[in-house]
């Protein structure tokens, strides 16, 4: 039973909600929510995300405007440790293999790479109803801008939206709800989260990213003992950003993305997962570059750590 629960939920890992909305920087947001891990287990995961954006939208309609294309190749290392059956500590470190902007009009490109942000978090399994197979967990994450925020390429310090790090502390509370059904191969989950960024206020920069609100709904199917297939619908809304106290009118907006995915459980507690993100609705403020597709691949392994017991009976001393 434990294994089935574990397997049912493992597919919930690593859902990036990448977007190429203007003026957002740092790691693409990931939900990182998974339940069913037992006490003293350590999950080590790495995932790769490729994202491509080349289409401008004006509100909810496609625009003929053409300025640049953005390509993202991102890697995330994640280590989670279950302190108890209810509390899990999470850490993430992002690395941009390439964050590239191609300016088709004048045939130039800019490219950044390097460490993005580090994220530390805690997940509390707040509610578990074994009769209804309903679980609720609260997750609190803190983004630490440990990566490079002053990268220089060809005599130019890259703008903040191209720097590998977001340069800003972020607080990210979220809720994960999962529902299984007795005798059914289907499982449902929902992930609700918000992201609040600290204002960057340095000698050079005065900027605040718009708050981000996300909601996703996922249906997973245990196709066989090892294979899990899923489809999720991800809603995302970002508020407008502020730069030097002024509202940036062409930032933020709403999008809806469909994300089919599969995960496969291998021997020795390894599992692999892959998914594709396809935007189905976009409504941006002003005119903005929007995401065309995302592709994601990840591998993870769970270690069940043993607690070392004293070799000598204290009563003997």
């Amino acid at each position: 039973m434990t294994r089935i629960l574990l397997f049912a939920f493992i597919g919930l890992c690593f859902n990036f909600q990448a977007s190429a909305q203007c003026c957002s920087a740092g790691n693409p947001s990931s939900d990182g929510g998974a339940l069913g891990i037992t006490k003293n287990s350590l999950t080590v995961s790495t995932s790769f995300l490729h994202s491509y954006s080349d289409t401008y939208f004006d509100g909810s309609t496609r625009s003929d405007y053409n300025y640049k294309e953005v390509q993202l190749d991102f890697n995330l290392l994640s280590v989670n440790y279950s302190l108890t059956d209810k509390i899990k500590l999470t850490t993430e470190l992002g690395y941009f293999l390439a964050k590239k902007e191609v300016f088709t009009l004048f045939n130039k490109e800019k490219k950044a790479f390097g460490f993005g942000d580090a994220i530390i978090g805690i997940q509390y399994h707040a509610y578990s109803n074994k009769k209804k197979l309903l679980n609720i967990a609260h997750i609190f994450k803190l983004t630490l801008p440990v990566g490079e925020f002053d990268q220089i390429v060809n005599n130019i310090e890259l703008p903040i939206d191209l720097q590998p790090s977001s340069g800003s502390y972020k607080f990210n509370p979220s809720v994960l709800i999962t529902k299984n059904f007795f005798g059914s191969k289907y499982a449902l989950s929902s992930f609700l989260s918000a992201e609040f960024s600290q204002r960057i206020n340095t000698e050079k920069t005065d900027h605040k990213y718009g708050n981000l609100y996300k909601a996703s709904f996922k249906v997973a199917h245990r196709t066989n003992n090892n294979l899990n297939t899923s489809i999720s619908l991800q809603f995302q809304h970002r508020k407008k950003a502020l730069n030097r106290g002024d509202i940036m009118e062409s930032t933020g907006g709403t999008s809806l993305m469909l994300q089919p995915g599969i995960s496969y459980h291998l021997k020795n507690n390894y599992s692999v997962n892959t998914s594709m993100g396809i935007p189905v609705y976009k409504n941006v403020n002003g005119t903005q570059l929007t995401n065309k597709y995302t592709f994601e691949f990840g591998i993870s392994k769970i270690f069940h750590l043993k607690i070392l017991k004293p070799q000598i009976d204290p009563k003997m001393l």
Partner: protein
Amino acid sequence: MKATTFVFAIIGLVFFNSCDKESTNNNLQTEMPVIDSLITNSTRITYGGDNPAILKCFATGGNLNYIWEVDLGDLFSLNNEGSEVQFTASPCCIGEKIITCNVSNDKGEVSKNITITITQ
């Protein structure tokens, strides 16, 4: 014998290499950099890539290194030394943008700002 020759060859290489470096440094006459002017062909541009602003930073001091900064918008170096750049921006960046030219060498660093307005 072979080993001794090899060791002397390595020492010789290191020695001549360091001599070279020293003479190069001695030949460079640098002074604290001074930015004489920072100019642009346009302080007001429309967003997009059709009409970029061209910026030139004129500085003296010898062995100069140019670094340009803007928080939002797209700068591209137009020459090898980096003293000339072009600036464009997407619709996100409508408004005033402060562009900074930093010039440095072994004697110090100076900077100068110029404001370009991005319009619709």
